[in-house]
């Protein structure tokens, strides 16, 4: 299986993501922001960082990068896509995911490890987990406070589209939401960083428990 990782100017978790893919035993493929296609990958990770310096709003400029056109089509056709942290922000700006990520209510950058609960395994990125499973994952963000209007929030809950929920909310996020998926359930956005815990040498490889899902979840 080939898993692509997009690289925008200012992405800084792309190497971690490529390494995590390697640890899964899949083939990592770098997708440059100016690439005209996705090089035939089976799944895509939009990594964290500060794409385009977070100018205007986090993710607002990356959304118009050339590689985003093919990525949007891939997502619309049901291809598995996960956005992590800034990648989550990019996917909301691109309207591939609902809501938006606001400034943390504390007005502080949060850099910590948090416990999250898996709320659904009906996505390609959580298929190898069970609802109720708990993971400890790193978070590092300034805008991780998930917001959606009350109707959208109710819909996300009704349709079981909250993917991860914080056990202790680090940023003021609505309903303790740490991750959501789109209507087709193939596009997931999460604020915590599974790719940063992909090797016991880094303190934990718990992130692989989540990312590994795509090997079965994508049905490839």
């Amino acid at each position: 299986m080939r898993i692509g990782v997009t690289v925008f100017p200012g992405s800084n978790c792309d190497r971690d993501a490529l390494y995590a893919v390697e640890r899964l035993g899949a083939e990592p493929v770098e997708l440059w922001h100016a690439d005209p296609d996705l090089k035939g990958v089976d799944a895509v990770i939009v990594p964290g960082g500060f794409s385009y310096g977070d100018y205007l709003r986090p993710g607002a400029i990356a959304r118009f990068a050339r590689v985003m056109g093919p990525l949007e089509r891939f997502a619309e056709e049901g291809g598995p896509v996960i956005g992590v942290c800034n990648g989550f922000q990019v996917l909301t700006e691109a309207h591939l995911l609902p809501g938006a990520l606001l400034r943390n209510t504390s007005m502080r950058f949060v850099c910590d490890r948090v416990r999250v609960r898996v709320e659904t395994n009906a996505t390609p990125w959580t298929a190898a987990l069970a609802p109720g499973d708990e993971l400890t994952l790193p978070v590092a963000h300034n805008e991780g406070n998930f917001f959606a209007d009350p109707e959208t929030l109710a819909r996300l809950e009704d349709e079981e589209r909250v993917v991860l929920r914080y056990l202790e909310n680090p940023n003021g996020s609505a309903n303790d939401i740490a991750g959501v998926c789109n209507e087709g359930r193939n596009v997931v956005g999460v604020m915590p960083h599974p790719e940063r815990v992909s090797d016991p040498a880094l303190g934990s490889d718990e992130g692989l428990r989540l990312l590994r899902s795509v090997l079965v979840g994508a049905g490839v």
Partner: protein
Amino acid sequence: MKVRVLVRPKAGILDPQGEAVRSALPALGFGGVQTVHVGRLIELELESADEVDAMCRRLLSNPTIEEYEWEVLS
């Protein structure tokens, strides 16, 4: 022509930036400030204002969380 675009958090949306500024003002001795909202000012120089609204919707603001207004300056 010059166009000035004003983008701000929608009413009712938590504005932690505004709140931080509001709580800093009394520390400097400025009293009586009830609310502060922090927005963004964008000035454009362009040939025609025909597409300013589309620019606001598609890039300059995020309609999920922000509202905008714009005016022609000259």
